[in-house]
């Protein structure tokens, strides 16, 4: 049996700007793998698919406690970087900006120790996307600087008015057997 266990699979319903994936982080695992594919928007205007954690009380963490850094690798121009501290979300965690299909965003990431109430929640992520013909690959890192137990996460249309048309989010736990 694989030590990589599927915990949750969520299909994004067309027309929503936030998708909460709750009760996926637990004491059963310390490390999680998230795979997102085919994120797109209803309209032609793009949005950034960000991540916010959800704590054990069900509250979405919007405090300015997120730091991130990522490298953007473009096919049409020079590479660039984005980095910030004390943000309210992990910016472009799921990909560079996305818009209407057939262009989309796709991503794989690892989350370290989100359920622990004694350590920060860390992330490694990489994605690719296409927007108006611009193709972008991102490799990045992030952290939520709270020593509180997180039990889930939110996929977020950062613009809030450019909802998702679809996409699939799979969450796996990476089991460590003692």
């Amino acid at each position: 049996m694989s030590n990589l266990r599927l915990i949750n699979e969520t299909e994004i319903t067309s027309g929503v700007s936030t998708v909460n994936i709750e009760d996926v982080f637990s004491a059963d695992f310390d490390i999680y793998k998230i795979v997102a594919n085919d994120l797109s928007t209803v309209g032609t205007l793009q949005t950034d698919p960000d991540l916010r954690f959800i704590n054990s009380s069900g509250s979405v963490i919007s405090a300015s406690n997120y730091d991130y850094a990522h490298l953007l690798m473009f096919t049409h121009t020079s590479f660039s970087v984005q980095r910030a501290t004390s943000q309210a979300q992990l910016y472009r965690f799921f990909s560079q900006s996305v818009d209407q299909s057939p262009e989309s965003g796709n991503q794989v990431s690892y989350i370290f120790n989100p359920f622990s109430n004694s350590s920060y929640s860390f992330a490694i992520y990489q994605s690719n996307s296409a927007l108006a013909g611009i193709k972008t690959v991102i490799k990045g890192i992030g952290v939520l600087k709270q020593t509180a137990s997180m039990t889930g996460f939110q996929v977020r249309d950062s613009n809030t008015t450019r909802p998702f048309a679809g996409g699939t989010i799979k969450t796996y736990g990476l089991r460590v057997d003692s």
Partner: protein
Amino acid sequence: MALVQVDSVTVTSPVASIYLTGINDDSVYMCVVSNASNNSGDYQLRMRVAVDSVQKSTGNYDYAYKQLDATTTFFNSAVTNANMFGGSTTGTSANEVQNYIFYFYNWYSSSEYSFWTNEETTYNSTPKLVGATGGGVYTVGESHNSVRFWTGNSVSNEYDTTQGTFTLYRVV
């Protein structure tokens, strides 16, 4: 992709070394380091290939990486003829921990070099968020069945690792 656990060590009190063993075929192996930190100062997490509990310390480690940093310019780094792979440096503050995902390639082969890739996210001794994406190679064609992790601040000085979970998986 399926992962089968081969070995795991959870550190809850200071230890000088962590050896993960059980590489016994030509599969790709995934190694995950989670929530690792050290005991008494600002020290670097380090790695060497090994056979059982005998590490390989010759100057045959070449590696390169892109350093990501939440507060300043990213940079490229290339190291040749080192006697180990060096990761980030953390201190003893509670939130300064290191997390890595390695993939090991050809470690068991007696004729191939031993390669790895590494991804990292760490809250370092500054403290700030840093990480790296890169890879490396041990340029000796010999078989290795284990890996050693430890912390240090110079070639000869080694210090205790205080906490962390180190797990080796076979990719099947």
